[in-house]
């Protein structure tokens, strides 16, 4: 049973981690909690739904190969969500650069309410159901049952994280993101277009969130417009658990949160599922005030 | 006869991760003197201030004020005991007026409580009026009385430094620690600060200064300590320090050789 819980935890933890990365990336460059990020994730799930529903209308070569089709779905959903991220920043945050710290937070919340209701109005309040064609048959192995989809999700989330890690640490644009997050003023002075970097950051975060959205949609088979709220809070908690602004931290935090929840709910009472996560968070922060991997950025006197 | 020691450190050490920022520094500040601490960048001067004031608790060693151990005290306790400081990176309260900035320094001398504040008892009004009067005096002392109702964020760099000194003085400290008070100032302004520091000492306050400006250091210090790599490498009167080989090599360079 333990292994089963662990596996469940890792699956859901992977999606927390992918969303948490978006929070962390944006926090890094703007020192801002992008509260509308959960909504992007939700929109990603909807886009996944819309695209997958189009399967019958697809050219035969796509219909024939499910993995290829899914890849296309992920790609398109992620791209459109990147655009959402791009516009979100442009509309809600860019005009507020340099405003008091809480101001963009409120416009973020406004955006979150807006997007949620927008999707509700246009897609309906009902749950949308993914066509259940993909990898749902449970496989049992030594008392642990899992679906091929579950494995795919775990591996692709890890792959996506690796991709991001490479992007952040090995590419020029990635280094520019890191530079901007330490000192945007200076970044501009060495010729980095800070606006571009910020946009790219939002797009990268949204890209990952969209992938998480499609995965979760496939995994649970049903989505609705409130998906972003819970997913957002959980992922945000994960980001803080790992140390907000810290990329590996978000990954660790996401997986950890998923596992804690799965074990807590499994071995104790599922009624208090969310409580475990927050208790662990408080406990971690009491001993490591900047999260698990966060650096204590003491102001130098 | 030399004055008695007011503030002493015994084998004070501070480590950050693996880095020893301060490695067993023992020094003594005498009552009513102007003491300077100099040393290369990263020598541990600011860290010394931080360790003394409890901002950054020392890894080992002791700090004593009037012979009393204050090593484990928090910054606010140290301040209440009479050690005030200014910061290397300016830290005025930007969204408060100058008068309010200084009044924060008067906080520890205020006597009225919460109930008095809510009910606006005479006790509260008198206390408030008394402290405001004192705060204005202090602003006048550093030459900022005219601007008392401006927000601190609108001050120039130099004015901010003055405000910080006034705010620290508001504590009525027995020891004042100044971290690079004239950095970024031109000679005229430096001269003004030097006079100010002398005046402060006249009022019976002991002053400890960290500074890279040799004109100021050599001009007003009674004594100088030199730190390098977290250790004391020299101590003495200005002319002695200026002639010290180790100090020249590590810190002063050719330009400040004793030839002057």
């Amino acid at each position, binding site marked *: 049973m333990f292994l089963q819980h662990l596996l469940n935890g890792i699956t859901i933890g992977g999606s927390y981690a992918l969303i948490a990365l978006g929070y962390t990336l944006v926090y890094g460059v703007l020192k801002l909690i992008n509260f509308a990020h959960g909504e992007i994730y939700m929109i990603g799930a909807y886009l996944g739904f819309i695209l997958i529903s189009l399967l019958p209308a697809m050219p035969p070569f796509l219909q024939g190969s499910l993995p290829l089709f899914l890849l296309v779905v992920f790609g398109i959903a992620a791209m459109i969500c990147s655009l959402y991220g791009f516009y979100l920043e442009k509309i809600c945050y860019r005009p507020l650069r340099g405003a008091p710290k809480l101001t963009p937070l409120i416009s973020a919340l406004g955006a979150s309410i807006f997007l949620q209701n927008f999707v509700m109005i246009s897609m309906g309040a009902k*749950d949308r*159901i993914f066509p*259940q064609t993909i990898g749902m048959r*449970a496989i049992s192995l030594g008392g642990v*049952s899992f679906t091929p989809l579950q494995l795919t999700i775990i591996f692709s989330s890890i792959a996506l994280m690796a991709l991001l890690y490479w992007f952040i640490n090995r590419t020029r644009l990635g280094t520019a993101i890191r530079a901007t997050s330490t000192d945007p003023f200076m970044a501009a002075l060495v010729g980095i277009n800070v606006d571009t970097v910020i946009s790219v950051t939002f797009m990268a975060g949204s890209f990952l969130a969209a992938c998480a959205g499609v995965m979760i949609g496939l995994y649970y088979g049903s989505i609705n417009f409130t998906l972003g709220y819970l997913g957002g809070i959980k992922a945000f908690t994960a980001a803080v658990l790992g140390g907000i602004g810290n990329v590996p931290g978000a990954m660790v935090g996401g997986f950890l949160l998923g596992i804690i*929840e799965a074990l807590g709910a499994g071995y104790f*009472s*599922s*009624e208090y599922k969310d409580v475990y996560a927050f208790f662990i968070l408080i406990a971690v922060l009491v001993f490591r005030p900047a999260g698990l991997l966060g650096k204590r950025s003491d102001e130098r006197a | 006869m030399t004055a008695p020691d007011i503030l002493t450190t015994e084998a004070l050490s501070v480590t950050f991760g693996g880095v020893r920022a301060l490695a067993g520094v023992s020094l003594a500040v005498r009552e009513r003197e102007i003491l300077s601490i100099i040393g290369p960048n990263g020598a541990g001067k600011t860290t010394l201030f931080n360790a003394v004031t409890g901002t950054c608790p020392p890894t080992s060693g002791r700090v004593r004020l009037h012979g009393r151990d204050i090593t484990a005290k928090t910054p606010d306790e140290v301040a209440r005991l009479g050690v005030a400081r200014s910061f290397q990176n300016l830290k005025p309260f930007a969204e408060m007026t100058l008068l309010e900035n200084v009044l924060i320094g008067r906080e520890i001398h205020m006597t009225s409580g919460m109930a008095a504040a809510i009910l606006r008892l005479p006790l509260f009004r008198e206390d408030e009026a008394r402290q405001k009067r004192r705060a204005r005096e202090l602003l006048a002392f550093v030459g900022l009385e005219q601007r008392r109702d401006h927000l601190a964020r609108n001050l120039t760099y130099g004015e901010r430094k003055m405000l910080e000194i006034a705010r620290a003085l508001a504590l009525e400290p027995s020891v004042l620690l100044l971290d690079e008070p004239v950095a970024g100032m031109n000679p005229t302004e430096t001269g003004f600060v030097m006079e100010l520091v002398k005046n402060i000492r006249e009022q019976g306050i002991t002053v400890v200064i960290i500074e890279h400006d040799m004109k100021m250091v050599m001009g007003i210090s009674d004594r100088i300590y030199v730190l390098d790599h977290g250790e004391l490498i020299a101590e003495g009167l200005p002319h002695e320090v200026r002639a010290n080989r180790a100090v020249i090599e590590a810190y002063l360079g050719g330009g400040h050789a004793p030839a002057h």
Partner: protein
Amino acid sequence: TKKEGQEGAVIKIGAAGQLTGPEAVFGSDMLNGVKLAVEEWNAKGGVLGKKIELVPGDDQAEPRQAVAVANKFVTEGVVGVVGHFNSSCSIPASEVYHKAGIPQISQACTNPKLTDQGFDNVFRVCGLDDQQGKAAADFAVQKLKVKRVAIIHDKTTYGQGFAEEFKKNLGTGVEVVAFEGIAKGEKDYSPVVTKIKSANPDLVFFGGIFTEGGLLIRQYKAVGGTAPFIGGDGIMSEELLKIGGPATEGTYATFGPDTKEIPSAKGFNENYRKKYGEPGVYSVYAYDAANIILQSIQKAGAADGKKITPEIRAIDYNGALGHIQFDAKGDVKESPYVVWKVENNKFKQVK
């Protein structure tokens, strides 16, 4: 706001529920049901020679909003209210209606507390949790002859109340191997289902609605669970089948009898479908509730809540749901709960 002169020209009835937010679907099902009734009456010339105006009220499933909506209805001169959906909204709102003397008929609020308050103006056309809980338990014990039952509920007034009634009525011969609450709105129930599976029950009871129900069933089967599920009116929806997919095959639900078999409901189903698509499970209840109010206005001969209430209490109504009469508390006299089962991806009444 309308001018005084126009007030008398129409008769206003309110329809309150969650029109926005996560379960807005219940709100719109209800609203459409009421709309249909109002349109039909208006087509026939209204009541007492006046047109009927439907005033929607969005309580967002939030008690504070529900009270605001109720007050707004009172101020606007609404004479009767269909709603609210959630017990946590209906209960505080009913106090406002009570003070103003406006009759309220809930189409879906199954919590006993609503009518236990002793307000004379509060009614419901649906069954109660205790009736439903008993129906489900009887079925499980007598027909399915289960020995080990796992119970899950969604920690809402409805879900938990239903689950507790079910448990109470199981009797001593049945062992409850698990009693778990889950968080609504969540998507991941794998910990609970893993736990339930290892408890090895013959039957899993779920008190809650289809959104979570579908996911639970699906995830339970995905971790290799085999026991069938049983739920109540909350899971009785086409949506359950879509969310749960093939995993829902064999799931039971307690609900009213098949409206398709009641001749009176046939017309409703056709008309509704024409206008708003497939009716939701509560559409017909809302439709009947509205009809009861309108008929009572007709009988009372005045659009005045105080006069309408006694008429509702005394009504002997034959509508889409069949025969309805209210008892002293305001509940329906006979509770016609029957059991349904999913067969070939459709709910079929178990004979």
